[in-house]
């Protein structure tokens, strides 16, 4: 009972600290549960769905006639290490939605319903999966939810599927959304669309009749249970079957999962670091609060010791005083995180393409929270250890030693800018009191500055990210499909709006590298490749590999690799490592001369242009489209998938600022109130001398402004020093091996100024308590 009575009294007296700790731990718990749930559930769910749908350990998308595909299937089934192989009928289509034209067969039409491949259909408002989805009628289509963000397409909108150019199309109406665990993420260029079986047949026939072809299959290959590693299996398949001849692209299940989870993994990892930063912030605030509260309770504790309480009892009460709001914060945070996860899930479905279960992964959450609880308990235990030093005699003689103003380093007090000088003096005198606020500023500014650096790298339209995904820099590309059109004619149209700074030929293809299927970049001017190590591929027998491909194949610059293309295998020397995040970094680059060694003959390259006025690109594309229509193919270096990333970054930024505001508020309430309590007497004296409440509030706020200024500068410096390494670590998951950020003065100053302003405002508001400090409190009333 004695514990309960004292605990209740302590909590009542220091309810500000109680509420503050509760709020901090509550936010951390909600954020942590949400991040852990999304991270854990998304990877588990993604794998479950790929398996449930019937996709293999390796899936190859091939183009060809039904008979040819059957032969290939038999070859694959007969390959050593293959357990079984199944073929799913697909139709490669080009399509147009709300003006967004997707060409190059980057659309896959798949039959629905299909007894073998049971796709999940979403409820209309994307809140769950339909139990009894409606079958598609002719002319109807289910699309992945990323269509809403990529093409702003809604239910009822039309999708034009090209049969033979822009003039001959079939129009489908979007009936709803479905879950595509293989290509449903907005990060992926390939998009699956479900159509009625009769539509599938008719489209196939019509496209075959017009010579457009497009028929093919997704071949799901399952390895034998005790078979070799997938990478070996893939090599064997390429060597022993005709897979390469079908212009296929092949992905392992893990790679497909990587593509699909790229957004979740990057942002979960990023946010997890933020939550850890918040945890450190909470510990700093806790430390300050505990030390101050012990000093505040010094006399009482001395008296309690005098009447028989032991150090252990008093320490236990103090530990319980802080563990109570921590446990409550966690207890309330866990259930609150469930609807939060639901909301995040609903908002992110269009970007992730997955309806991630909102059930908390009990094991991970419990283990993580328990670990945090243990850390905090140990931390509080160590901080409350100084209760041991309190002796009844010292307490009765006047409490804690006057340790606050022993600083040797003092700031002069001058008449000019008196408030600022006083603030600096108070700050220097009691610097220990402000260390936690300073460190909190360093951490928060560091993280906000880091976010700003990522934003700056992304650019307003995501061009920074596109630069990382592109193998070469360009503003736009044109491929002539009609041989009557000359390159000169095209360039005349372009020059109508902007001078051309440079142009070169470029093409993306696929080829095998040491038996593995990769995306292949071919560039007329290999000087444009972004080299990280070694040099570019100057000669026709040289190739560039990304860091990831080099890692997969265990090769390095100077080694020789075998490239198989057009049925010909040639040796290439690796001249260097380059940066290109396309296909999550699974690509390599060669020169146009190198490509010519495969005897590819007449290949229609894209002409890539670098414009003098890149801002005119939109108008140029419009003019070219009007003049040449579908007789040319235009690559305007715009990827609608960047919208999702920019939106996610914006949402994360807003969330971080919101959490930062709450944290600064709590930090000020907790540290400020303790400082005000301690300085009550000095404040009364200042008032008696003629200082107004306003003036004292300003000096109080200025102390925090100064601390925040120092913290903000350090935060910016740390951010400049460590951002590239930290962010680079996460971006490697997306195949971006090199991240280099630069920040303008204003972009750098904004988070720093924001945090400083918040500290100042909250400190000024919190110093409102000074109003209640009366000079008359300096004396005992007679």
């Amino acid at each position, binding site marked *: 009972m004695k514990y309960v009575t004292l605990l209740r009294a302590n909590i009542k007296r220091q309810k500000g600290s109680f509420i503050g700790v509760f709020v901090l731990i509550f936010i951390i718990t909600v954020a942590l549960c949400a991040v852990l749930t999304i991270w854990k559930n998304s990877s588990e769910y993604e794998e479950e769905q790929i398996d449930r749908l019937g996709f293999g350990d390796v899936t190859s998308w091939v183009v060809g006639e039904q008979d040819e595909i059957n032969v290939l299937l038999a070859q694959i089934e007969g390959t050593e290490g293959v357990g079984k192989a199944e073929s799913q009928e697909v139709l490669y289509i080009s399509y147009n939605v709300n003006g967004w034209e997707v060409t190059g067969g980057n659309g896959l039409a798949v039959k629905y319903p299909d007894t073998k491949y049971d796709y999940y259909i979403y409820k209309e408002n994307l809140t769950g999966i339909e139990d009894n989805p409606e079958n598609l009628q002719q002319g109807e289509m289910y699309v992945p939810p990323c269509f809403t963000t990529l093409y702003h397409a809604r239910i009822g909108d039309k999708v034009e599927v090209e049969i033979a150019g822009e003039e001959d199309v079939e129009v489908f109406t979007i009936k709803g959304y479905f879950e595509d665990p293989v290509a449903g993420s907005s990060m992926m260029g390939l998009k699956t669309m479900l159509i009625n079986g009769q539509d599938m047949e008719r489209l196939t026939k019509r496209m075959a009749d017009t010579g457009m072809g497009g028929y093919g299959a997704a071949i799901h290959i399952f390895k034998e249970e005790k078979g070799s590693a997938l990478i070996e299996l893939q090599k064997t398949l390429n060597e022993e079957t005709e897979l390469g001849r079908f212009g296929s692209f092949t992905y392992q299940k893990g790679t497909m999962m990587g593509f699909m989870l790229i957004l979740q993994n990057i942002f979960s990892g990023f946010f997890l670091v933020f939550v850890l930063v918040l945890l450190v912030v909470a510990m700093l605030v806790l430390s300050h609060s505990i030390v101050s509260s012990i000093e505040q309770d010094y006399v009482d504790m001395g008296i309690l010791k005098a009447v028989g309480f032991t150090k252990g009892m008093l320490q236990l009460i103090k530990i319980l005083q802080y563990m109570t709001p921590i446990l409550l914060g966690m207890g309330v945070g866990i259930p609150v995180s469930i609807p939060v996860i639901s909301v995040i899930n609903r908002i992110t479905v269009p970007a992730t393409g997955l309806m991630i279960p909102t059930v908390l992964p009990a094991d991970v959450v419990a283990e993580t929270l328990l670990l945090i609880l243990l850390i905090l308990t140990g931390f509080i235990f160590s901080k409350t250890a100084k209760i041991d030093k309190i002796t009844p005699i010292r307490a009765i003689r006047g409490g804690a030693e006057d340790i606050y103003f022993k600083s040797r380093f003092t700031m002069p007090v001058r008449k000019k800018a008196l408030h600022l000088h006083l603030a600096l003096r108070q700050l220097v005198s009691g610097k220990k009191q402000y260390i936690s606020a300073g460190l909190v500023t360093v951490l928060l500014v560091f993280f906000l500055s880091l976010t700003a650096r990522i934003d700056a790298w992304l650019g307003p339209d995501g061009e920074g990210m596109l630069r990382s995904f592109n193998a070469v820099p360009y503003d736009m590309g044109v491929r002539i499909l009609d041989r009557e059109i000359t390159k000169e004619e095209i360039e005349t149209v372009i020059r109508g709006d902007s001078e051309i700074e440079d142009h070169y030929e470029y093409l993306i293809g696929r080829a095998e590298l040491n038996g593995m299927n990769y995306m292949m970049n071919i560039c007329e001017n290999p000087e444009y490749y972004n080299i990280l190590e070694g040099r570019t591929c100057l000669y026709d027998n040289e190739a560039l590999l990304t860091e990831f491909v080099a890692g997969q194949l265990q090769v390095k610059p100077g080694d020789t690799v075998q490239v198989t293309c057009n049925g010909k295998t040639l040796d290439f020397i690796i001249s260097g490592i380059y940066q290109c995040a396309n296909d999550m970094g699974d690509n390599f680059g060669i020169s146009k001369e190198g490509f010519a060694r495969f005897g590819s003959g007449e290949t229609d390259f894209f002409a890539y242009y670098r414009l003098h006025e890149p801002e005119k690109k939109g108008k140029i594309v419009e003019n070219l489209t009007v003049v040449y229509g579908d007789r040319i193919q235009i690559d305007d270096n715009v990827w609608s998938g960047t919208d999702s990333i920019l939106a996610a970054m914006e949402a994360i930024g807003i969330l971080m600022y919101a959490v930062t505001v709450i944290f600064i508020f709590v930090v000020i309430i907790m540290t400020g109130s303790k400082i005000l309590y301690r300085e009550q007497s000095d404040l009364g*004296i200042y008032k008696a*001398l003629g200082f*107004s409440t*306003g003036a004292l509030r300003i000096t109080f706020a200025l102390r925090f402004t100064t601390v925040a200024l120092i913290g903000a500068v350090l935060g910016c410096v740390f951010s400049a020093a460590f951002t590239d390494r930290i962010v680079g670590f996460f971006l490697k998951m997306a195949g971006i091996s090199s991240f280099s950020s630069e920040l303008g003065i204003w972009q750098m100053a904004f988070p720093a100024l924001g945090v400083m302003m918040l500290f100042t405002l909250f400190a000024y508001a919190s110093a409102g308590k000074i109003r209640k400090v009366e000079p008359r409190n300096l004396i005992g*009333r007679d």
Partner: protein
Amino acid sequence: MKQKILKAVDVAKSFANNGGQNHVLNMVNMEVYEGDFTVIMGSSGAGKSTLLYALSGMDKPTGGKVYYKDSEVTGLSEKKMALLRAKEFGFVFQQSHLVSNLTLFENVAVTGYLSESKTAKEVNEKALELLRKMNVEKAKDRLPMQVSGGEAQRAAIARAMINDPGILFADEPTGALNKRNTEEVLHLLTALNKEGQSILMVTHDMRAAIHGNRFLYIEDGKIIGEMTMQPYGEEEAKMREKQIDAWLSSMLW
């Protein structure tokens, strides 16, 4: 004819107490004259300090009015009151109440900086002069916790004098000092008064009271007696003590 520097008209102060009201000051009417060393005496709980705080603007009376040099100060805003305290009122507390993180010199000078009429240089010179006068010049760069109670209290007097206040309020200024420091502080106050400084002091210590020349006796929140004497002279200390003692006895102290 001496000028009235401070005047209280029907000043009342009450505090809420267990649902009722505790009337500490009951319609106090009094004046303080320029150049006087006025001493308010009374038994413990009579309302001496409460009256001092109400008169000096440290606390707001619940009734009545206070005039300083014929201007009402009771209704002044917090800001104007702070300005008045900075420029016109000096205050010496029972405890020195120096700002703990400022040196003795800074404690004095900071108050001077609030005055707009003096430059920083003038304030610094005056602060040094006052500290010299109060015999604490050697300790000027020390923090309050590094000096004795007497030195701190003398520095507090210097601080109270830095802006040449119209009136110096002193609330039991020797209450926390030993005998030697008490004597020193009282001599300083007397010396200031002799230079023309108006002083209003609350005390229940006879040794302190004899330094005054006008005495007010407060009982149950009312001024019930008044006595005047010639200004203090050291040689007549014993005689003054007897005279005041007799007066207090007549007040049933």
